[in-house]
């Protein structure tokens, strides 16, 4: 860390000591998850042999684990966000061609700070600075779907392989869908006032000067904002998951959502997911419990992707800037991509 402490112009010394102590405390807490859950059910006079004991153990093990992972990853992303503002991403993507542009846009979508409430201003901002329509879509699909909360939770609940696969396949959907939309030449389906703004501005970017103290503050603020917002969802989700875990019989889901389920179970899961709107934090613990009961990973992840990436409220906001054929194409292409990802997941795993 000594290499990073070169902040001679900094108005304030970065709190490295505080950060180090937090890091050690985090590791210690993560290492004692199982003893903690064991102690918690022992204290309640339960054993894991009963339904109730198993459900309670699941709750006391998963809750701190997910919250710890979430805090760690969200903090890191808060720091990363200070390096990539939307303005900087836009400057990088301006004038890029389809292909390379889509790959860059989808990747930047993962690390650029993004709030679904500014999706539309961002969309117009990109177009007005000469970012092609297809490239803009790659960014808009990847940013909400492949986000740090989803990745942190997948990592916590299923391990790094599943998180990595989700990342790779999510990027593939975003890149391909953006390419397809770009190739279709759908610019005429933008609302007229948006079309008039295309490539009307320069993408010049002037970054605010920032020091490590400020970056760490941003990480802490991000944790307060995100974890502060999603923790009730996580608790509720794990609560539902715990009930399913303890009480629903093994292989209950296998016939409906399992590998040997009829072919239409996957499209049905995606279709059900589209109008639903939740965030990764709310849906994932339920996903974990479903998989524990024999549902196929691909089907469940496809369901999750469609819940996060496509939603009715988002379509209604997008209607202000896109005409119906373009919204329909967007939803159709993304849903198709998710479907293919689901089949691939089921075939590979």
């Amino acid at each position, binding site marked *: 860390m000594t290499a990073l402490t070169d902040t001679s112009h900094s108005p304030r010394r970065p709190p490295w000591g505080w950060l180090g102590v937090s890091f050690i405390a985090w590791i210690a807490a993560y290492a004692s998850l199982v003893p903690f859950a064991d102690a918690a059910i022992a204290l309640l006079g339960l054993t894991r042999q009963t339904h109730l004991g198993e459900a309670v153990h699941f709750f006391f093990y998963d809750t701190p684990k997910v919250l710890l992972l979430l805090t760690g990853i969200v903090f890191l992303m808060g720091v990363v966000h200070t390096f990539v503002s*939307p303005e900087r991403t836009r400057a990088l993507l301006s004038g890029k061609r389809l292909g390379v542009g889509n790959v860059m846009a989808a990747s930047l979508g993962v690390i650029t700070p993004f709030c679904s*409430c500014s999706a539309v*201003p961002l969309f117009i901002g990109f177009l007005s600075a000469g970012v092609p329509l297809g490239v803009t879509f790659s960014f808009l699909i990847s940013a909400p779907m492949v986000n740090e909360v989803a990745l942190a939770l997948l990592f916590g609940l299923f391990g790094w392989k599943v998180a990595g696969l989700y990342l790779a396949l999510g990027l593939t959907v975003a890149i391909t869908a953006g390419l397809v939309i770009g190739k279709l030449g759908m610019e005429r389906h933008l609302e007229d006032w948006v079309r008039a703004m295309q490539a009307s501005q320069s993408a010049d970017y002037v970054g605010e000067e920032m020091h490590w103290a400020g970056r760490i503050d941003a990480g802490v603020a991000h944790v307060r904002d995100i974890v502060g917002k999603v923790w009730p969802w996580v608790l509720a989700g794990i609560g539902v998951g715990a009930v399913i875990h303890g009480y629903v019989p093994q292989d209950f889901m296998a016939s409906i959502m399992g590998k040997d389920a009829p072919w239409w179970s996957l499209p049905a899961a995606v279709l059900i997911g589209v109008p639903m709107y939740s965030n990764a934090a709310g849906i994932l613990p339920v996903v974990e419990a479903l998989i524990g009961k024999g549902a196929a990973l691909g089907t469940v992840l496809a369901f999750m992707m469609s819940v996060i990436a496509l939603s009715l409220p988002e379509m209604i906001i997008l209607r202000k800037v896109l005409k119906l054929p373009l919204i329909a194409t967007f939803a159709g292409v993304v849903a198709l991509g998710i479907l293919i990802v689901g089949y691939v997941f089921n075939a590979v795993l």
Partner: protein
Amino acid sequence: MKNIKVLGTGCANCQNTLKLIDDVARAKGVAVQLEKIEDLQQIMIHGVMSTPGVVINGKVVHAGGVPTRAKVESWF
């Protein structure tokens, strides 16, 4: 008198920004004309991409997220 516009499509962060600016202006006893701009076309004219954005006398001074109290105080 300063004309301050908060640009945003109506999310919670935009409300918080508006309230913060109002608080600071009152605390400092500065008279301001505070406006909330929700119309997308109006927001885009200022070139702000990440909301909430803050415009003072026609100049964008902040974009993306609720500004810190210290930053708001520096405007007055």
